[in-house]
């Protein structure tokens, strides 16, 4: 289990150019597998362009209390990239005026940003229909100062989406670190205790499942059924929906694929599972991703590859939703991760 980010380890994959070189080279350059661009050109989808903006996803910093092996953000305790209150204020201007109906805060562990609570309080006032915070659960148990997070989320009617790789201890701890399972269970019980995730509750609690290895997620509905049964029977835990998310071959997951000699097989699996119907609703067509320092991206993955939007508007200081929405989305071979099988997005499958 890694305890440091690739960046802190000065791994060559911490350099995004190196990742893009791998994604554009090898089996793709050799013609063994088709480039994503050519694949979507076949169905008249190249260049890929946005539809109506629905989701503003804001990454408030890469600092995290965990160092998950698959993390595409390469997040960890040693990451110091944290959104400042000044940048948050610029984001608030956008939140107050956006046409988007969903605000999605992510990280790192967003709660570790010292201005997180202030930001949530201010953002909640904008009255966006669906206000999501992506919480890793263990943060709620990491330190006394986080113990009241369930109440805080409830007060601001935040929609909590949390990662839970499996309903067994072994598989969870292998992916996310020792003790993560027990802490996650405790955190889920506390969220249930304030009303989150209960069948008729308006306090939404959804879980994210992503595979702990070089394979694709199975059927989202079947997994949800298994998770629900096991969590309620073993721990009395309830939640609303499970989102099955495919691991994209970037950052630490790419590092793992290469080190374990699974990279080529994984790319074959993604390309074999390519589903043209998923291209229609791929999340970059309705999402804008904003980084801790205010740059704009087509998605969180492109953010990690430092592929800024192909638009005159590249930073929140110049934000103009209409101009921004008139752009071509930047793609590479990692995009196959979002079009495999039933498709994958931060909200789970896109072509069920």
């Amino acid at each position, binding site marked *: 289990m890694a305890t440091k980010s690739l960046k802190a380890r000065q791994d060559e994959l911490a350099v995004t150019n190196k990742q893009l070189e791998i994604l554009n080279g090898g089996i793709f350059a050799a013609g063994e597998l088709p480039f994503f661009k050519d694949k979507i050109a076949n169905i008249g989808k190249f260049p890929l362009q946005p539809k109506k903006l629905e989701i503003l996803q804001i990454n408030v910093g890469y600092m995290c209390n965990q160092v998950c092996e698959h993390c595409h953000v390469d997040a960890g305790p040693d990451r110091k990239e944290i959104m400042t209150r000044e940048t948050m204020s610029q984001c608030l201007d956008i939140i107050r005026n956006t046409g988007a109906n969903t605000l999605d805060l992510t990280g790192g562990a967003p709660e570790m940003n010292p201005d997180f609570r202030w930001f949530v309080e201010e953002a909640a006032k904008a009255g966006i229909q669906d206000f999501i915070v992506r919480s890793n659960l263990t943060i709620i148990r990491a330190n006394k100062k986080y113990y009241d997070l369930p109440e805080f989320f409830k007060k601001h009617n935040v929609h909590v989406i949390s990662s839970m790789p*499996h309903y067994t201890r072994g598989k969870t701890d292998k992916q996310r670190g020792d003790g993560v399972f027990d802490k996650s269970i405790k955190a889920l019980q506390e969220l249930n205790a304030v009303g989150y995730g209960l069948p008729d509750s308006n306090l939404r609690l959804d879980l994210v499942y992503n595979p702990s290895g070089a394979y694709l997620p*199975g059927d989202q509905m079947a997994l949800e059924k*298994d998770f629900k049964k096991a969590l309620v029977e073993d721990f009395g835990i309830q939640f609303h929906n499970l989102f099955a998310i495919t691991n994209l071959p970037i950052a630490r997951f790419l590092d793992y694929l290469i080190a374990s000699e699974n990279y080529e097989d994984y790319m074959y699996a993604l390309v074999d599972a390519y589903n043209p119907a998923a291209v229609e609703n791929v999340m970059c067509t309705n999402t804008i991703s904003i980084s801790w320092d205010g740059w704009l991206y087509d998605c969180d993955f492109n953010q990690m590859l430092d592929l800024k939007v192909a638009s005159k508007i590249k930073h929140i200081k110049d934000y103009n939703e209409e101009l921004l929405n008139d752009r071509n989305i930047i793609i590479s071979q990692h995009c196959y991760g979002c079009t495999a099988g039933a498709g994958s997005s931060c909200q789970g499958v896109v072509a069920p």
Partner: protein
Amino acid sequence: MANPYYDAADLRKFGKITEWSEELGTKFFDYYGKVFEEGALSAREKSLIALAVAHVVKCPYCIDAYTKDGLEKGITKEEMMEAVHAGAAIESGATLVHGVQMMNKYNKLSM
């Protein structure tokens, strides 16, 4: 010697059997796909049966395929190993039950 009868990469080419007999190949894959859909048995249960049978028929392609399929379906390694034992127990039982035939023959031939 790097010239194995079984090449893991051949599994990806399985679909190509249709090229030399489209009708039969297509019928087979349609049938195969249908078998593993959710039915009276869940897809999860059928995946474990397939894994057990894969071991009994000693098909390396099937073992690779259904180990991965099990992972995709969230099946644990303990469940997978128990399925393999279920297959192995039937296979060894099938051998051992022939011991009765041996005993019958022995008794018939012996004075």
